[in-house]
């Protein structure tokens, strides 16, 4: 243990709105969804030039064509037509609120750990696994760092173990936070997250009028 970290209450002590978490997760699942189902309508079916058998004489029912909807292999009247997309954008406030509630949930259930940096002495995966076991970090751990480029050793170690993922700050999302049992943040990542989230929470400009958010910590 190296010291005490100060956390901002607007992010780490909001009301635990599980319904907003649910909405965020639903959004993350469905905005990418495209339904490729397509049933060709009447005019895209072959026309067999009329009646399969004459109107009267045969003991069978009267029919006009072989591809009517009541037939097997016939067209569907109001079926799915073409690729339909389920894309929608959840309002920004809900997304921000979702991130804040996910972080509070993790904090208050003792699943967040803060770390100096993600440097390891060896690239052996056993070293990381034993470290996580000693510290009672759960089966799946999400390591969040400042930038995309991560140190070598942790890259090799987490690639070999199942359940350990590395993530930069811009990839942080509610689904990943809840999917992994523990969340491990570096101090630099913490600062960046807090700055961005606080800016998003307290700014009330329209997207057009908004100035660019601060990038560098």
């Amino acid at each position, binding site marked *: 243990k190296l010291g005490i970290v100060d956390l901002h209450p607007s992010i780490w002590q909001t009301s635990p709105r*599980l*319904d907003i978490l*649910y909405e965020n*997760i639903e959004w993350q699942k469905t905005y990418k969804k495209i339904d490729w189902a397509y049933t060709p309508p009447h005019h895209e079916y072959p026309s067999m030039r009329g009646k399969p058998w004459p109107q009267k004489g045969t003991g069978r029912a009267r029919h006009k064509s072989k591809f009517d909807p009541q037939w097997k292999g016939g067209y569907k009247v109001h079926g799915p037509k073409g690729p339909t997309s389920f894309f929608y954008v959840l309002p920004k406030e809900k997304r921000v609120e979702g991130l804040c509630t996910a972080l*509070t949930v993790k904090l208050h*259930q003792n699943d967040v750990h803060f770390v100096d940096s993600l440097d390891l002495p060896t690239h052996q995966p056993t070293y990381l696994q034993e470290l996580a076991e000693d510290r009672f970090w759960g089966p799946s751990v999400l390591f969040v760092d400042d930038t995309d480029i991560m140190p070598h050793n942790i890259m090799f170690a987490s690639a070999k173990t199942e359940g350990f993922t590395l993530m930069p700050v811009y990839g942080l999302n509610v689904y990943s936070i*809840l*999917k992994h049992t523990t969340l491990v943040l570096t101090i630099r990542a913490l600062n960046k997250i807090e700055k961005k989230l606080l800016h998003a929470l307290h700014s009330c400009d329209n997207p057009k009028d908004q100035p660019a958010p601060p990038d560098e910590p």
Partner: protein
Amino acid sequence: MPIERGLQYLRQMQRVTLKNLPMPLEKTLKWQQAHPDETKIKAIMSRKGPISRSALPPYGIDPIQAEGRLPWILTVPKEPYYEGVEEARQYLPISLRTLQRLIDLRRINPEKPIDLPVLCNTKLFSIQPDQRQFGLQLTDEGADLFSTPINLEIQWVASELAIAAIERCGGVLTTRYFDPISLSALIDAKKFFERGEPIPRCDTPPINAVESYTDPKQRGYLANPDSIREERQRLAQKYGYKLPDPSKFSSLFRLKKDPRQIFYGLEPGWLVNLKDQTILKPTDAKFQTFYHS
């Protein structure tokens, strides 16, 4: 703070995972009403029904849900004058005139205290406890004729004239409450003793009756005796007669019952054996405390 309570729950409950989240609530009725279905719109624009025939139900009722009829709650009529019928207490009337007549015909002895069983033994009154009847009440018909001093115990008095008529002759009136179990013992005392049950103790009156049974103007049995004496003086002054001396009368006259007692001379808890002409009394301490509490 609601946030802190929510976080308290979080700390104690299981880990929040993708499978643990609650499903969203159904859309409220307000939203559904603002966005009607196709079927609803079709129903509104139909050629039949109360809307097209100008036969809408009263304001506040949805014509589509009502399906052309009034809802059941409006078809059943309201009878507000019958409110409280199940709790109302009934008292059968006995007038001063009948009392005087019974005394003159020697069916009642005025030298002994007149009680409910005494009046029921004349077989003029049929009191039914299951019909919410709680005894007898005194009416003031024949107040001028009344002229014998009696010790009367009645369940209800409606007018001051009746009380004044009895006290002018030198009598004593008390209003006394009997609960239905003790009533059934009093109405037909012989039948009750033949049953072989111990004498019940009388319950306290219900909450809406306590006020009248502690009122000295009603001469309640739970009222303060000093205030009763005051009220007697006041009534005498109001109606213009002189209160006779109470010391002339016999000791039998002045008998009064304990609030738990039903019969004169018999205590609650005692078992009367008519065949062997004996009375059995409980000796155990807990029975005695119960019956005399």
